[in-house]
């Protein structure tokens, strides 16, 4: 494989997807920890403090891996995407620089105080440390989303005669409407991950008959947070995100649904396999008119098919984009169903006896990670063949002088390192879950 672009994309895609497994958990948990600590203070309830302490330990582990896997992301803008950085750095460097000054310093300062400083700080200041961590991690998320939003839907820039993109309107760039919608969708998605993790630990302890008081508290926290977040991630945030794609990235919408021909009453396909060469969708199970309704608000709206667009504007990895979207949307629907049913049984006091559902809750925690990763794949594969939508093609953004002999070498290095990192993380989290809410 001598394809330079392929290896740059694989390397960035792999390291980014792996990295985001951790921030989604920490950002989700940051909110849940804040809620637990806030309620503990409001109700003067020590059990909530114990639960918060348990999740702060998990948060610390996840945060550490998130930090070290995030460093390569910052470097790769320059190492792998030099021509993109040279052309767009004057714009996206703003948000990446702000992330360092405003978010990372906040997080790194208060992380140690949150994880190790409860006795030294006392309850009020420990709560403030949790608040600082929440603000830092969610701010960090915003700066990354704003950077990505510029690549999805560039605003606030001007193109200089030498081809570089320069910042023209700081606030238009920072408050890109695309960023606001994408941020809401992404952050609620992170809360889904955190809530499912909390519920899974509660379900595990309940099934085992361990720590009954904490197990019940975990189930309650995980399920209510999970239900609210699962609904919000679909509606209104996911819905709005879809409408943005429908308006600004029409070939992407067509590719997400495997739609070749234009027309009204467009189908939403529950399942099916896109055949790009034959320009068909094999074995479809359609919901007639639903895509038109979701995209434009009326069943009779015309949804343009890929046939209308020149082939060099189609997303380059159409099959993966199609499946990523269906995995994300399918799992998102399942999450609402699982959390809705769990909440019903919880409210009526029958959850503890519903062992099959507890099994489902326990085993479901990996799926939000998959759904969030798939969601990012929809965003990033859907943006193709553009690096900055409509302005700069991905093929024009690579580092020209870096050859595949180098990218394959470092990609293999990352694979090995990240594999070990994943094992260590699971081992340490497993130890914490095993040790229980009181810790070692």
């Amino acid at each position, binding site marked *: 494989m001598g394809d330079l672009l392929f290896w740059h994309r694989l390397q960035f895609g792999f390291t980014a997807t792996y990295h985001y497994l951790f921030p989604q958990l920490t950002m989700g948990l940051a909110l849940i920890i804040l809620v637990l600590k806030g309620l503990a203070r409001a109700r003067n309830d020590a059990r909530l403090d114990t639960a918060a302490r348990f999740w702060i330990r998990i948060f610390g582990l996840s945060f550490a891996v998130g930090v070290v896997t995030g460093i390569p992301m910052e470097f790769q803008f*320059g190492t792998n995407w030099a021509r993109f950085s040279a052309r767009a750095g004057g714009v996206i460097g703003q948000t990446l620089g702000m992330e360092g000054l405003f978010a990372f310093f906040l997080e790194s300062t208060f992380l140690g105080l949150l994880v190790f400083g409860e006795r030294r700080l006392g309850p009020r200041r420990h709560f403030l440390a949790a608040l600082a961590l929440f603000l830092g991690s969610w701010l960090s998320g915003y700066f990354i989303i704003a950077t990505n939003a510029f690549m999805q839907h560039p605003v606030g820039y001007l193109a200089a005669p030498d081809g570089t993109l*320069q910042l023209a309107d700081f606030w238009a760039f920072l408050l890109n409407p695309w960023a606001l919608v994408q941020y809401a969708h992404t952050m609620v998605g992170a809360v889904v991950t955190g809530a499912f993790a909390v519920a899974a630990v509660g379900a595990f302890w309940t099934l085992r008959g361990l720590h009954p008081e904490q197990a019940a508290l975990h189930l309650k926290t995980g399920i209510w947070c999970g239900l609210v977040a699962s609904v919000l991630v679909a509606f209104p945030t996911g819905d709005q995100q879809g409408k943005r794609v429908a308006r600004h990235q029409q070939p992407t919408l067509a590719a997400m649904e495997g739609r070749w021909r234009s027309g009204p009453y467009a189908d939403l396909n529950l399942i099916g396999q896109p055949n790009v060469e034959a320009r068909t969708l094999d074995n479809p199970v359609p919901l007639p008119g639903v895509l038109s309704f979701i995209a434009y608000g009326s069943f009779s709206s015309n949804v343009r098919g890929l046939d209308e667009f020149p082939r060099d504007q189609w997303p380059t990895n159409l099959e993966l984009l199609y499946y990523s979207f269906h995995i994300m949307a399918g799992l998102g629907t399942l999450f609402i169903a699982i959390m809705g049913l769990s909440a019903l049984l919880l409210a009526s006091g029958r959850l503890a006896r519903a062992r099959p559902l507890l099994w489902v809750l326990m085993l479901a925690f990996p799926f939000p990670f998959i759904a969030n990763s798939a969601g990012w794949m929809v965003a990033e594969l859907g943006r193709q063949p553009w690096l900055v939508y409509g302005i700069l093609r991905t093929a024009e953004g690579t580092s020209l002088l870096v050859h595949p002999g180098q990218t394959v070498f470092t990609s293999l290095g990352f694979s090995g390192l990240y594999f070990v990192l994943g094992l260590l993380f699971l081992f340490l989290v497993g130890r914490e879950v095993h040790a229980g809410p009181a810790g070692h």
Partner: protein
Amino acid sequence: MEMLWFWLVSVMVAIYAVMDGFDFGAGVLHLFVARNDGERRTVLAAIGPWWDGNEVWLLAAGGSMFLAFPRLLASGFSGFYLALFMVVWCLILRGIAIEFRSHVPDGMWAGFWDGVFALASTLLPILLGAALGNVVRGVPLDSGGYFQIPLFTHFRVANPVGVLDWYTVLMGVLVLATLTAHGALYLAWKTEGEVHRRCRRAAPRLWLAVAGLALVATGATAAVNPALYANLSHAPLEWAGVALFLGGLATVFIGLARDRHRAAFLGSSAFIIGILAATAAGTWPVMLRSTLDPAASLTAYNACAGPGGLRAGLGWWFIGFPLAILYFACLGRIHRGKVRAAEDGPGY
């Protein structure tokens, strides 16, 4: 505006070197100055609250460089591709070693991570020093502003150059020695007992080595990049840098002789800042020198972003930077005085 950003980025790089420098030094030294689990944890407790934030200065400096000098970042990062990934891997291993070490109370587990921590802490200053050496020596930038060099060639300072040659290796060793000596002073200041005693004993010897190496490196730099000294006549800031690092060095030895370890640590911080300031003032406005054609060098003028971005960046930089300093001041207040591992609990 270009000059302002040049100095803002330089300030952040200097803060990074001083701050992450002491925890690198602690990592290099800890196998020698801390011999049992309690002592190792004392070392970790001394740097625990700091190291993560210290590392953020690298990312923050990189971010500011990205927005102000995108061409420099693009060219430098892609040109040093392999070397930078080695830096990244060391940063990953080092962070994980510090964070995971104390999670399992087991001698083999802790011992393994202590080794990883020491190894990564030793390699990083060498790599970063070599990077500094490359900036001073120059790289084969073509007229398009890009380059790509192998990790090593013939170890002579002549084209085709590699990342490692005798000069850049010398700079790597200098930086390793400096940060080790810097870390020794930090640990002498912040710890008590055996760790304190061993650091106090090692520091004068380490600093003599640093002084000797600095002298050799100054001569070598004159041979490799004479232009750096040609600026001396009209660069008052370069004189200030020189004065700072000489004064810092003197403060280190005086502080050591009088057992004033905080003063000595501040002296070594001044030494590091002085060297970097003198280098920056000497190279201005060149940021990455071309060994092929001086006209192809990347300067603060030809590598900078458009005026709109530079102006907007200044607006938030002057809010964010004081905030960061404020956080560090708070942290310093909370963790003032000597550390005791047992009180700070596991992890630190």
